[in-house]
């Protein structure tokens, strides 16, 4: 079993990386890009037989306390 955590900067936080990438995409001729947000992707391998519900609770806790900083980032957790 795998857990995937996608972390993105909050909309209120200036994201210079996203803006720079957006500018580069425009320069390359890609049309219609209205926003780019650069974040992080974390993949976590879980032992076989792990209880998905318990793992999800634990990982939500870890994502909130450690893997993301709720002041500046949002996260999305997916179990697979």
């Amino acid at each position, binding site marked *: 079993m795998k857990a995937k955590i996608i972390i993105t900067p909050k909309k209120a936080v*200036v994201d*210079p*990386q996203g803006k*720079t990438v957006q500018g580069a995409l425009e320069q390359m001729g890609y049309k219609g890009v209205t926003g780019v947000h650069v974040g992080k992707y974390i993949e976590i391998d879980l032992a076989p037989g792990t209880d998905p519900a318990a793992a999800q609770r634990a990982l939500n806790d870890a994502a909130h306390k*450690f893997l993301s*900083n709720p002041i500046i980032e949002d996260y999305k957790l997916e179990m697979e």
Partner: protein
Amino acid sequence: MNFAVLQFPASNCDQDAIHAARLLGHSARYVWHKDNSLGNADVVIVPGGFSYGDYLRCGAIARFSPVMQAVKQFADNGGLVLGVCNGFQVLTEAGLLPGALVRNRDLQFHCEHIFLKPATPDSPFTNKIPAGKILRIPIAHGEGCYFADEETLVKLKANNQILWQYCAANGNLTDVANPNGSLLNIAGVCNERRNVAGLMPHPERACELLLASDDGKWIFESIFAALEKKSAAKAA
């Protein structure tokens, strides 16, 4: 006074902090990140550097070091804690200071002298800075852009928790003088209780004229004065 200067893997301003404290006539020693106790300490410096390689987020891993539990307890008991640069990032990640530090707005690492306006003399970290004095102090960071949500900023202003702001040589808080895009030109803040502070600039690298400025010593002198006042009050 006894300075405890923390050492994490990849701290690199720990020696500068020790040097500055000793230069100004005080005793200072290192405290390893795996230590559970600070020993005999009057003030704790969380130094600059790239603790744990800045992995995940700056300061995110250092905050879970055993020594940080001791720092938390020390701060809860009213002890003075100053975080410099990466130390500031560690203290915000640990929840000891409000807000967060994000990537500089121009994505560049800035290594230069800047001007700092002390926003209030009312703290153990600013009380000795002469009125109207603008401090010239170096910065060296890639992620020093101060961010806090609107509600936190309102609280910081209301409680006088903003201690230093980036300014022009004449003291004006301009956007050009802001090296990293920090909200309200914030370079450093303190907690509500005013015993924990952090700033991105490096006062420990500006305590002797050989290093082009000794303005940083005013921040250390403020700490000494606050500690003396505290020990005098205790003795009385």
